């Protein structure tokens, strides 16, 4: 089961590559839907038999010992669920668009899915690292091959920046291996063999830098806005929807439990950076006139809050971060899809030259509205639960930080609602006159997203139930110094 979940996207990537340019998007959709169906089936198994049903172990390299150690616990399952839920939508969002060499394009997306699932499943440090790096390659080629005018320097910066972080993490992993008396990368060994707290401080930075760049936490965010706006829409969705969750997931999975003393030492700095990032990114977002960049900076603010919740080191913060990872993944894909629809039809990303789309595209208006209110965290949407828990978690950690972290909700409302007002409301101008309402595939994608937003907002319990056992273990380890 585990292997099937992992390898189906890889098979799909090959199938898409062989299917030819015309059929590529349909074959990709077929496979991603099948993978999602498989995930639903896996969920029923998980409910009955728990994580034990998903353990897969095979020796790979004997010295230094690296094994193919895969597993799915609640936390992994939620992330895999997010990935497999978003992929069909991302593929579907590419329907009715023209891509040169479409088969490679969709094949790279599926390869990306394979790598992401691998990251969430890997229970062996080096295997995890290999998947982590592997995820970088498809997205780089997607952005390089199908990106905007300025893609070459932007993607180069993205690649080198994230690789720099990753290589430091590799160094950190090798050091962990040598500090580990069992000499392995196995996650349970790493959890159970505390490292001398004298070494945890600098090891913390080896890992934290890698994750902070990926998430991104200010001041390591400079690659992000440009890459988001230069990458093709599907690339941006993959990046913002799933890939940056790799960073926050890894904070919970690898950093907190393995280096508790390091987290205790440097956590306050990390949480402060995160909160500074929230305020800073929100302010920049308010100044933005470019639609995609605005969403990019709003994304920095949101994930900053997620990171702050994680470093608050309490249950509310962790729960909130997981729920918000899912919610933000869904919402940001919706946002970027809306941006893509607008840019594709009006040929401009400049907010001030838009307006009045509501008058000509009512269906689009309704669905876009739902996505926007979810990302400003209105109650009964999925954004609310996560942000509420996160702010509460940070509040338990430190009141003043919580005050600033709470600003994200207010500032978020400012820039999102103003953006909505300027693009959708008001009078129709010559740019937006010809705006056609959504076609079937666009309606389907946004409809599913809007539906999920409401369902998650009203009934988030299954997610809490899934992740609770894993979070208990992780928080225990993280607080044991």
């Amino acid at each position: 089961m585990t292997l099937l979940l992992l390898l189906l996207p890889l098979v799909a990537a090959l199938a898409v590559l062989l299917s030819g340019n015309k059929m590529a998007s349909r074959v990709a959709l077929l496979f991603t839907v099948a993978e999602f169906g498989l995930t639903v089936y896996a969920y029923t198994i998980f409910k009955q038999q728990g994580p034990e049903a998903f353990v897969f172990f095979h020796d790979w390299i004997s010295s230094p010992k690296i094994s193919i150690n895969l597993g799915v616990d609640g936390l992994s399952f939620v992330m895999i669920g997010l990935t497999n839920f978003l992929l069909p939508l991302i593929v579907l969002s590419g329907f009715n668009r023209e891509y040169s060499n479409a088969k490679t394009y969709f094949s790279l997306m599926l390869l990306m899915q394979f790598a992401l699932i691998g990251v969430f499943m890997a229970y062996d440090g080096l295997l995890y690292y290999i998947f982590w790096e592997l995820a970088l390659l498809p997205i780089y080629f997607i952005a390089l091959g199908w990106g905007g005018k300025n893609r070459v320097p932007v993607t180069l910066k993205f690649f080198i920046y994230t690789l720099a972080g990753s290589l430091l993490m590799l160094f950190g992993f090798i050091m962990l291996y040598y500090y580990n008396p069992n000499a392995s990368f196995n996650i349970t060994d790493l959890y159970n063999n505390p490292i001398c707290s004298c070494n945890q401080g600098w090891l913390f930075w080896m890992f934290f830098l890698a994750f902070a760049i990926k998430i991104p936490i200010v001041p390591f965010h400079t690659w992000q806005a440009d890459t988001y706006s230069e990458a093709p829409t599907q690339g941006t969705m993959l990046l913002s929807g799933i890939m940056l969750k790799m960073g926050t997931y890894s904070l919970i999975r690898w950093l907190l439990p393995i280096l508790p003393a390091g987290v205790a030492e440097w956590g306050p700095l990390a949480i402060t950076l995160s909160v500074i990032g929230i305020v800073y990114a929100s302010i920049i977002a308010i100044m933005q006139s470019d639609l995609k960049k605005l969403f990019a900076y709003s994304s920095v603010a949101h994930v900053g809050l997620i990171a702050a919740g994680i470093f608050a080191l309490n249950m509310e913060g962790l729960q909130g971060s997981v729920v918000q990872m899912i919610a933000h993944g869904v919402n940001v894909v919706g946002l970027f899809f809306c941006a893509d629809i607008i840019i594709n039809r009006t040929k401009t990303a400049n907010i001030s030259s838009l307006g009045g789309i509501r008058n000509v595209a009512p269906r689009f208006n309704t669905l876009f509205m739902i996505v926007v209110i979810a990302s400003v965290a209105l109650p009964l949407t999925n954004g609310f639960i996560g942000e509420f828990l996160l702010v509460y978690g940070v509040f338990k950690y430190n009141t003043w930080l919580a005050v600033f972290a709470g600003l994200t909700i207010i500032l978020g409302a400012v820039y999102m609602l103003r953006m909505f007002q300027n693009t959708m409301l008001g009078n129709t101008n010559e740019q937006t006159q010809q705006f056609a309402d959504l076609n079937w595939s666009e309606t389907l994608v946004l409809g599913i997203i809007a539906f999920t937003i409401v369902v998650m907002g009203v009934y988030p319990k299954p997610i809490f139930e899934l992740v609770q056992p894993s979070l208990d273990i992780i928080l225990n380890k993280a607080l044991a110094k």
Partner: protein
Amino acid sequence: MTTLLYTTCLGLFCMLAEVLNLRKLLVPALIIGLSAIFVVNMQQWGITTPASIGPVSVSHMIKMDNFAIAFSGLAIIISMLIFVLSANYYKDEQNHISDYLSIMVFVLCGALVMFSYNNMAMLFLGIEILSISLYIMAGSRRFDTRSNESGMKYFLMGAFASGFLLFGIALIYGASGTFELEGIAKYVAAGSVTPMFYLGVTLLLFAMLFKVSAVPFHFWSPDVYEGAPALITAFMSTLVKIAAFAALYRLFSHCLGGTMYYVEPLLIIVTGATIMVGNVTALSQINVKRILAYSGIAHAGYMLLGVLSSQTNAASSVLFYAAAYAIATIGLFALAIMTFKSNFSENVDAFNGLAKKNPVAAALISVFMLSLAGIPPFAGFLGKYYIFSEAIRNGYVTLTLFAVINSIIAVYYYLKVIIAMYSQPANDKPLIIHPSYMVVAIICAAATIGLTVAPDMFMQILK
């Protein structure tokens, strides 16, 4: 010993092929011959009978231990790949093909001696057989001034290094009274080492560092690589570099291990400088051969990390790294030679828009570039990982961190080619890739991925 003998015979056969008018059959015969030699080589595995020619024992000269056999096997495979390429590469120079090929076989002979030497004299002979053949090959484009320059430069610098080598060996002999590796090792272990011996070791080390193109003895390599015919550049940057490394490694693992504490500071500085200078200088290059020359210097630095770790049996790590590096480089050259030819240019812009002209070739080149940059899931990553992890085990933590940071820099120039292929508009010059080149490239790509999937097969060889 049999490996060396048969290979020498094969070289002689190549020369005779000219006389017997067998030029058409030459390349297939070479491939078959080398395959046979590969099998014979591998059959000696684990057998410890001393080397001999008939009744005469030569074990004090040559010792075919597992280290030598493993590296010989790798060298034979590399040569086979190069010879597959040579059939088409020299198709317009049928008059000289047997000369060229026989000289290249003699390069391999020299390399085989360098893998298995058990005596300082044999080390010198091996290096000279290899180098003199290469001087000829580097200058083999007689009417091309750059090729002439390349051959001449290589010869002058090489001769200088040979002088160092001989002087070093002589001083070591003067101090220890023997040429044999075991004898010298015993002399070092006995503890009464004279300054003359240290001077000898230093000179010997300088000569070897020259051969592996370590900083500050690296200036020859970009010029020589650039001027030499591309196929010979491929040969030099793979087989020759590996031979020099294996010889250096063998020197420390079999003989001079006891002097490690003395050369260690020097080696650390040279390693750091080699990695850094190679990577940083490569950044500003636009000629692909020069980029690969500087990247080769940087890779030499990483392999020097392996030499530093030679006291804890890092041989399999070095072997793996060398194999990953060589395979990626040959595959890259196979496709690059064709690109150079069709564009009449050896610069990065020759690769512009390759992804549109030939997507398979572009994908393969990306695989090789990413492997050289050390990005998973390709073999270059595991190679780096093994080397780094050996170095950390030996306590070179800061140096390893330095190497890690440098491999970030390296990504920039490897990506330069990928960017040219995928994001620049194509020119109108058609790209025709000869099937044999494509075959070599596909074999290399398969090996690059295969080495990651099952590295244990390889890594257990020298445990």
